[in-house]
Every structure is written in structure tokens, then in C-alpha cells.
């Protein structure tokens, strides 16, 4: 962010900085009786972002969305939209619109009337309403169904009506609560592309709640992984996948091999530090990735970054190398998957591309192997104090 000179002559130069923070939650808590649903959650969503709240069911992602929409009031903390505190405002006074998981279309109104509902409430001029409704139905390719009732629509069509009904109001941000959850896989992928396209075309902020990591990764600019009512880590899909900061993130987005190590106090060189595994084998990792961890740490590596070598083969220099025995070997066509166990009981998953094309090049169960990966691909997460 560029610093603005104190004596700026253009207040406009300051404004964008404020408006960039489209949605802002500060120290939000939500309790139902004794049950803590959200515990101290803060997040900032910038203007025009496609922001995904990703997490397993019960992690508080929908509650967070509902607090932005005004359907739930936080027990404490503030919710601001475009710099204004809206914590206590009811949903109809907030400049955001929601697409519900169940679509929640009005069954007694036609598609057209459903889409016009918001504009009519805002007392938008009749002609203007008509024009905008027609335009929006065009955008979602449903003009031919304008006179239908929601009962006569398919799931995908109903979903698009719900989207049109929300977007026609030109909200500051669109909130989507698992909008594709009820659709079959093929339709879901298709609508994901459409959603992403629409978001790019109109350029407003989308906040998308989902439990589907692939959906989040394919659509969102920023993904916030939630667990137990808190955000574990927020960042781009690449950040989260390549540099997860918690064990939960490491295993919720894809799978990871997590290895508890005892860090050595002095770095190996300018770049790397080293820790030792339960087998007393060294594992190197980039020193800066362990910044901020004082206690025990875990290092991790993605299964597809790991390669297997026979005992008489030598891995490239600079790789982390562990020794173990193949426990299980599975042929999956595109890939070969191995489960390797070290003498100390560490279990490592390895996914190798199927390059060889015959079983001669593969490793069978019981075979001694070396497991190796580029030390730069090692990420570091906080270890569990209990050691479990």
C-alpha cells in the first residue's frame, strides 16, 4: 500500500484506500448459549475480490457469512461494509445480497417477479425495473423462462434465478452460501465457470462459502480456511497449497506428509535450517518458514513432490532423504501411489506419475527405498505440544 503524504491536496487519493476494504470483520465472536461458534474472527475482504470461506461443516463459515448479511448478530465485535459499521443493521438495510443454498426463490412469484422483487422494494422506477430485470435474465440466459414459476425450473435454472435476483440490485458484495452444493458434479463445474465469469464481468466482491476445496481453488482469489470457528490461514490457492501454515490446512487442502522434527538451534547455512526426525535423520527446510515457531515443529511435504529411489540409486544433491520400506503400492493409472514406513514408524505417502509404463520400474511392497524431495518444497507448521 502506498503511503499518502500528510498534506495531500486530493482527498480522492485517500478514499480508494478506505474503499478497498469492502468487508471488514473485527474480533467477531458468536456464541449460542455456551456454545462458541465463532471465536475472535477478523478478516478483511478487498473490493472486487472473489473470496472463499472454506472449511468442513460446522466450522462456522456459514455463520460468518450470515453475520455479514445481517441474519445473525455477532455476540461481540464489529462488521463493517465499505468502512461503515453495520453490525446492528438488519439485512434489508445492508448493501449486500445473498444467494442461499436452497435458492429460497419465492414460489408464488414468476421468475421475472422474483428478480424484480429487490428493485420493487427499493421503489425503482417501473420502466427501469423492467429493463434491468430483462437485462439480468439475459445475462444468466433465462429470458425464455421469465413467466415460469420457480416450481417449474430445474436445479441449475433455479440457481441462476437466485443469482439474477441478487445481482440485479447491484449490491456492493454478493454473498453465496454453498450455492452449488445441491447440483450434480457436471453442472457444478459448468456453473463455477459461469460464476467466475460473471464476477469478473461486473467486478463486485463475491464471498463464497463452500466445503469443496476444488471449488474454492478454481474460483477464488483468496481462500480463508476455517476450522473450529476461526480462520486457520487465508491466502491464494497457491499460498495455501504450497505453504500451509497449520496441520489442518496442510491436510484439508489436498493431503500432506507431516513429520514431527526436533529443530536444531543453529541454521545450516544462510537459507536452511535443519531438524531431526524420530529416525535421527536430518530434514532441511527454509529457515524463514519456521519464523515465529518457538516450540516443536512439524515439517511437511506434498506426496507428489516426493520421489522414491532404490537403495542403489542416489537422489539429487540437496534433497531431503529418508529411508524406509514400501508398505503398500497401488497402481491408479495416471499415478502410482506408495505408502512407505520408516523404521521409526513414520508413514509417508508418495504419488509418482506413471512414466514407466510397466511394473519393472515400480516398487513392490517390502522393498527398501529412499524417499527424497527438494528441501525447498518443505513447509513448516506448528507441532502439537502433546506430540500426538
Amino acid at each position, binding site marked *: 500500500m502506498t503511503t499518502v503524504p500528510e498534506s495531500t491536496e486530493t482527498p480522492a487519493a485517500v478514499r480508494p484506500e478506505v474503499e478497498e476494504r469492502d468487508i471488514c470483520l473485527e474480533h467477531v465472536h458468536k456464541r449460542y448459549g455456551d456454545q462458541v461458534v465463532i471465536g475472535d474472527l477478523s478478516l478483511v475482504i478487498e473490493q472486487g475480490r472473489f473470496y472463499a470461506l472454506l472449511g468442513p461443516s460446522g466450522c462456522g463459515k456459514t455463520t460468518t457469512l450470515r453475520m455479514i448479511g445481517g441474519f445473525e448478530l455477532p455476540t461481540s465485535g464489529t462488521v463493517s461494509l465499505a468502512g461503515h459499521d453495520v453490525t446492528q443493521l438488519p439485512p434489508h438495510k445492508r448493501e449486500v445480497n445473498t444467494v442461499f443454498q436452497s435458492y429460497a426463490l419465492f414460489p408464488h412469484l414468476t421468475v421475472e417477479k422474483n428478480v424484480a*422483487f429487490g428493485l420493487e422494494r427499493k421503489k425503482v422506477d417501473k420502466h427501469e425495473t423492467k429493463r434491468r430485470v430483462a437485462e439480468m435474465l439475459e445475462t444468466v440466459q433465462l429470458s425464455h423462462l421469465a413467466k415460469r414459476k420457480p416450481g417449474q425450473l430445474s436445479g441449475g435454472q433455479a440457481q441462476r434465478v437466485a443469482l439474477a435476483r*441478487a445481482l440485479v440490485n447491484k449490491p456492493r458484495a454478493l454473498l453465496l452460501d454453498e450455492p452449488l452444493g445441491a447440483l450434480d458434479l457436471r453442472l457444478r463445474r459448468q456453473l463455477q465457470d459461469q460464476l467466475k465469469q460473471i464476477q469478473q464481468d461486473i467486478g463486485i466482491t463475491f464471498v463464497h462459502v463452500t466445503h469443496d476445496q476444488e471449488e474454492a481453488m478454481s474460483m477464488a482469489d483468496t481462500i480463508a480456511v476455517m476450522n473450529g470457528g476461526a480462520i486457520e490461514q487465508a491466502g491464494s490457492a497457491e499460498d495455501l497449497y504450497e505453504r500451509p501454515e497449520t496441520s489442518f490446512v496442510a491436510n484439508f487442502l489436498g493431503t500432506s506428509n507431516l513429520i514431527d522434527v526436533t529443530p536444531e538451534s543453529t541454521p545450516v547455512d544462510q537459507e536452511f535450517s535443519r531438524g531431526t526426525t524420530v529416525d535421527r535423520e536430518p530434514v532441511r527446510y527454509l529457515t524463514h518458514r519456521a519464523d515465529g515457531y518457538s516450540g516443536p515443529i512439524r515439517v511437511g511435504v506434498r506426496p507428489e513432490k516426493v520421489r522414491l529411489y532404490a537403495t542403489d540409486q542416489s537422489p539429487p544433491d540437496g534433497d531431503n532423504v529418508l529411508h524406509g520400506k514400501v508398505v503398500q503400492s497401488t497402481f491408479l493409472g495416471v499415478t502410482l501411489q506408495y505408502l512407505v514406513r520408516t523404521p521409526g514408524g513414520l508413514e509417508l505417502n508418495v504419488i509418482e506419475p506413471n512414466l514407466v509404463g510397466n511394473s519393472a520400474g515400480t516398487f513392490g511392497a517390502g522393498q527398501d527405498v529412499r524417499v527424497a524431495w527438494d528441501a525447498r518444497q518443505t513447509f513448516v507448521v506448528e507441532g502439537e505440544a502433546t506430540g500426538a
Partner: protein
Amino acid sequence: MATALPTEPADVVAPAPAAGPRRDREQGRTRKWLLGVWSTLAILFLVAPILFMIVFSFNDNQGRFNFEWKGFTLKHWAHPFADPDLAKALENSLLIAVLATAVATMMGTLLAVALVRHRFRGRGAADFFVFLPMASPEVVMGASLLAMFLVLGIGTGFGTILVAHIMFSISYVVVTVKSRLEGMDPHVEEASRDLGAGEVSTFFRVTLPMIAPGVAAAAVLAFALSIDDYIVTSFNAGQTQTFPLFIFGATRQGVPPQVNVLSTMLLLLVLGLMVVNVLVQRALARRDFKRREA
């Protein structure tokens, strides 16, 4: 019998393989026939009094009683309101039923919305108290209402009947509307608020249209309950006559045939309302079915 038992099963079992299927079929036919007769009798038993009532509305009766068939006439149908007391009683009943239905439906619907959509202190208790009038015997309800009116120094009459009818109808309205509301996706109302409609606007534009069939059914029920109530009414009527009170009183001195005529009319009215209700529900069910199909 007890001694014969051991041998009997053997006798039955032996010819069974050959005669079995045919006997089964015969038995089935007999059973079906018996079932038909039995059902016809049951239905006759149910409708016989009503048939008598209708038939005797055409009886050319002599004297005060209308229990003996004297010949066909339409004169009672030509002058159904010949007895001024009877006409007044029916007018009272209809007026009370309409007013009680309107008030009870309104109050009951709002109460149902409150109970289903809002969490508040005392909600459980409110739920229970709504159920209470349905569970308590009418005699108890009538007597306690009378006691209350006496203590409060309210003279019994048209007003107290109306209050009593509203009171016991509300429970049925609440129960009927509640079941409809509980089957409704609460997100639809949230969507309405999300799109800029306030609480009131949401109720009239979204909630009410969606629960309308339930509200209509509740209104029919309230009307039917009010128009034929005798027990609660008799406690709280004072000098006011309603249709059921009049008939009950009249049977002791001779029933004018107009009672049959008006009862038949009333029956037709209620039947008509029920048919309309069923037709509406069916149309809605078809709409729901189509939606599920799509």
C-alpha cells in the same frame, strides 16, 4: 374341541395343495363382498340422520312435530325464515361464526408465526397454552369462561359468545397454520429481507402468500367449529339465541320443519366450503408435485 384339535390340522392340510388356490380366490371374493356390505352399512349409519333431516325438510307435517311422514311439500323451503326466532338465531350464529373466524384466523396466524419464527422467553409455555383449549373438555371451558365473565362483571350475551368462540378457535388456527409454516423454508423469508423488504413487507408479500392455503383451511375449521358449538355457547349465551341453542330448545316443544330446511342449507354451506378447500389444496399439491418433478 380340545381333544379334536390334534387331528384337525392333518385333515385341513391334506387336501390343501389341490384346492388351495381356488379356495383362496373364493375366500377373497367373499371377503371383498363382505367388506363392501360392511362399508355400505357403516356409511348408511353415518349419513342416515342427515338423510332423515333432508327428507323431512320436505315433509308436509301437521301440528308441532315433524316426526311422521305426511306427504311431500316445498312450502318450508319457500319460507325458510317463517319462524322469526329461528331466523334470528341463525343470523346470530352466522354473524358470530364470521366474526369469530375473522378474528381467530388473524390472531392465530400471527401467533403461529411468532411461535415458529421467533425464539423468545416463554415460547414453550405459549405453545402449551395454545394447546390447552383443545385438550380440555368443552364443559370445563364453558363453565370457566362463565365464571370469568361473572367475576369480571361482564353480562353474558352476543359479545361473550363471540369471545368464547374466538378463544377456542384460535388453538385450531394456530395448529393448522403452524404445520404449514414449519414446512416452509425459512431462507425464503430471509431472502425477502435480504432484498430490501422489512419485517412487515416480508410478512405480507412472502410469508402470507406462502401459508395462504393453511390459513384458508384454518378459517374453514374455525367457521365450522363456531357455527355448531353448543356446549360452550350455552354457558355464555345469556338471552342470546344461536342456531344450535334454538334447535336444542325447540326439540322439547316440537321442532318446526324450518329447522330441517336451515340445517340442510347450513350443511350445504359447510360442505361447499370444504369442497372449495379440498379443490384449492389439490391445486396447490399439483403445483408442488410439478415443482418436484422439474
